[in-house]
């Protein structure tokens, strides 16, 4: 009787490092490690030699010294005496701002265009195909510059809006589109506005609670409560009531055309670079999202819709209960990677002079201090942290939404 045993544990010979599969992987990894160490030593040695020759060193002290430049659009208090670190924070917040805005609008554009690409209407279908192809095939940098040029070269100057008889009227008496950006009314919070906001937050919580209650009731008893109209009512009625009961505490501060002879005063100013970047990223990425949405809806096989219809579901419920949950599983992962792309593409702000992190830390601070290596490393670290955290979120989502199989 023969049994299969391990090969005899003979003495170890040097040639086994290459010829024996048990040891070969170790050999390869050892070689790879040596090559890696050699490469790192070579690069680090070059870096040290070059820095010594140029009389430079690596130091992050510049972050604490005054930046010495102004930033026109900031979310936090900043002036030219603030530190470089503060300027970087301004940049980080500006990056976040434009990324969040662009993600929101790109999703809206993308969903609309993607759904319309599947429309029964031939003309609409073709128009959307043209939109998608044009925007996907032209670099986003060109779109940013085109929209920035529209903002700065075509829009009227702020002076056209000024005076008692202006050349151009404010839109709705509130919005001014000038070559420096858009002036919009700013909300004014008076006494009692906190209560209105509290009511608003509470009614949103109420909506979620109601929908949860309706769903549990449906699953438990099969009784179907309406959700659409009650939610809308819950959202609007309490807030409006609170608003008038408290005596209209929230007002709007529209741009004032008479206050100043040279410029509009009051309201919020949204600079032209921000608008160009925001809008260009939205329509460009919207075209990509449209394709994802279309693919996701088409990925749900027709049999699913038909089966749901055969069970007697109405078309709205077919969409909500059968098609969308399956389509979303296909749509959301590429959607999130598109959000990631938007976040990374906000670095193109430097082309139109929007003060994001690349323009502050990687642009002006780098040029003024000459700390190229430190600035670029910090810049990469920032983007890396953002990207990795978004990827981590995506993995959590994917695991939660994974088809649960036995």
């Amino acid at each position, binding site marked *: 009787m023969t049994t299969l045993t391990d090969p005899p544990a003979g003495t170890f010979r040097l040639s086994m490092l290459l010829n024996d599969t048990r040891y070969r992987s170790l050999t390869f990894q050892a070689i790879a490690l040596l090559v890696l160490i050699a490469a790192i030593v070579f690069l680090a040695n070059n870096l040290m030699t070059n820095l010594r020759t140029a009389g430079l060193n690596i130091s992050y002290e510049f972050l604490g010294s005054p930046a010495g430049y102004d930033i026109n659009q900031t979310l936090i208090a900043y002036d030219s005496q603030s530190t470089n670190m503060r300027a970087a924070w301004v940049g980080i917040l500006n990056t976040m701002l434009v990324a969040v805005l662009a993600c929101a609008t790109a999703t809206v554009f993308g969903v609309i265009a993607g759904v319309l690409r599947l429309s029964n209407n031939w003309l609409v279908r073709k128009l959307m195909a043209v939109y998608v192809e044009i925007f996907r095939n032209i670099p986003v940098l*060109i779109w940013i510059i085109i929209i920035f040029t529209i903002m700065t070269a075509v829009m009227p100057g702020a002076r056209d809006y000024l005076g008692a008889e202006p050349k151009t009227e404010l839109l709705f008496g509130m919005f001014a589109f000038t070559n420096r950006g858009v002036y919009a009314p700013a909300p004014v919070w008076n006494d009692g506005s906190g209560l209105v906001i509290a009511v608003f937050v509470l009614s949103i919580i109420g909506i979620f609670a109601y929908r949860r209650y309706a769903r549990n009731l449906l699953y438990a008893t099969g009784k179907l409560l309406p959700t659409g109209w009650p939610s809308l009512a819950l959202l609007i009625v309490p807030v409006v009531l609170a608003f008038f009961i408290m005596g209209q505490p929230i007002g709007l501060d529209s741009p004032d055309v008479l206050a100043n002879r040279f410029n509009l005063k009051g309201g919020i100013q949204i600079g032209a670079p921000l608008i160009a970047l925001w809008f260009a990223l939205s329509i460009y990425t919207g075209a990509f999202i449209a394709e994802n949405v279309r693919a996701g809806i088409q990925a749900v096989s027709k049999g699913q819709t038909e089966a749901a219809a055969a069970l007697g579901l109405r078309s709205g419920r077919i969409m909500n209960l059968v098609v969308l949950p399956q389509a979303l599983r296909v749509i959301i992962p590429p959607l999130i990677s598109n959000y990631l792309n938007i976040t990374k593409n906000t*670095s193109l702000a430097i082309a139109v002079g929007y003060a994001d992190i690349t323009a502050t830390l990687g642009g002006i601070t780098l040029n003024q201090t000459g700390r190229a290596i430190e600035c670029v490393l910090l810049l990469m670290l920032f983007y890396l942290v953002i990207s*990795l955290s978004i990827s981590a979120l995506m993995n959590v989502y994917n695991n939660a939404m994974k088809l649960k199989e036995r």
Partner: protein
Amino acid sequence: MSDKRADSVAFVRDTFIAEQPAPSSATGVVKWLQDNLFATWANGLLTIVSLYVVYLLLTATMPWIFNGIWNTESLAQCREVLDGSTGACFSVLSERWNQLLFGFKYPPDQYWRPTLAFVLMFAALAPVLFFDLPRKLLVITALFPFTAYWLIWGGTILTPLFALAGVVVGYFVYARFVKNSFAAGFFGAIVAALVVWMLGGQIIPENANDNALLAAVPSRDLGGFMLNMMLGLTCVSLSVPIGIALALGRQSNLPLIKVICVVFIEFIRGVPLITLLFVANVMLAYFFPPGSGVDLFLRVVIMITMFSAAYIAEVIRGGLAALPKGQYEAADSLGLDYPQAMRLIILPQALKISIPGIVNVAVGLFKDTTLVSVISMFDLVGMIRGPILASTEWNGVYWELFMAASVLFFVVCYGISQYSQWLERRLATDHR
């Protein structure tokens, strides 16, 4: 058996009614319009709104385009000719066309060289893109990089000749040793090529460029759309093999190799291309040996290649993961070792699956080559924003220039994506 007789039934039809044509509302244009444009009220409304949008777009652009002026010297003259009427000033394109294509420093009497390289590019790409063509045409593809380098940069022909010699020697070494072991062939080829290149570097004299047949053009004089094409083509073709290696490394069983590949890929994919271009611009020079003086073009090529290699690696990893496990096991059970299994079984199938993704990366990368304008290289966008819009003659001509740039990019990118769709249909071997 029925006992009913014919005359007991009230009516029996014994002739057919003549065939009628379908009602006019159910055929032809009317039916098409009804089905596709006016199926419901909402749909009809949508059609009318869309028609109005199309009308607005056409009335805004058509007079401007067809009323365009092509032959004036400056924007001021253009405005004189137009005399207040709507019209484009396309003269900027006809006057600055060469600058848009080649940059503003490339010697004008040498424009035929990049043009010839551009034509040769099609001959070189054809056998790669359309594999019905005879395989022997691949010789043109193999020679193209060296020819194109010599044509565009000029200088002594010895440089591309030695580069070619290194590759040829490497190939022969590979062919000689690959039968024994893939690793011996592969690394032997690299070492042999390096040896030839180093010899070449010693042999080529310092002043070889002085009386060369083609005048030498430094890298910083390259520009325009040519720069975009060169960066796109070079980086994509370099990054495919690197991407394959990274993808295999990431799938590997060797933990150290896997960690190296994962860190590299995730790092590159986590940062925007602009930061990598900053690295190329201000940082990378510090990492080369002192005095090596690697020029900006080469540094940018290195960084963009690393960038696209990481993305291509992820695409190919998707292809590798999509292959059924049986393929790997079948290759093992045939007794193939790792390089054989990869070259003969796994990669041909995985690469086929990955082609659409690779083409997507290539299109995205080609569009991203415009970012080099941010680090003050004068590519197409850099030319428009820099020398042309800053010149006194053409200060203020935006739309014509941006339209030209958009059209150039659209033609190339749309062409590539159409090719990819054709290829996907061509490669679809599962007869569904």
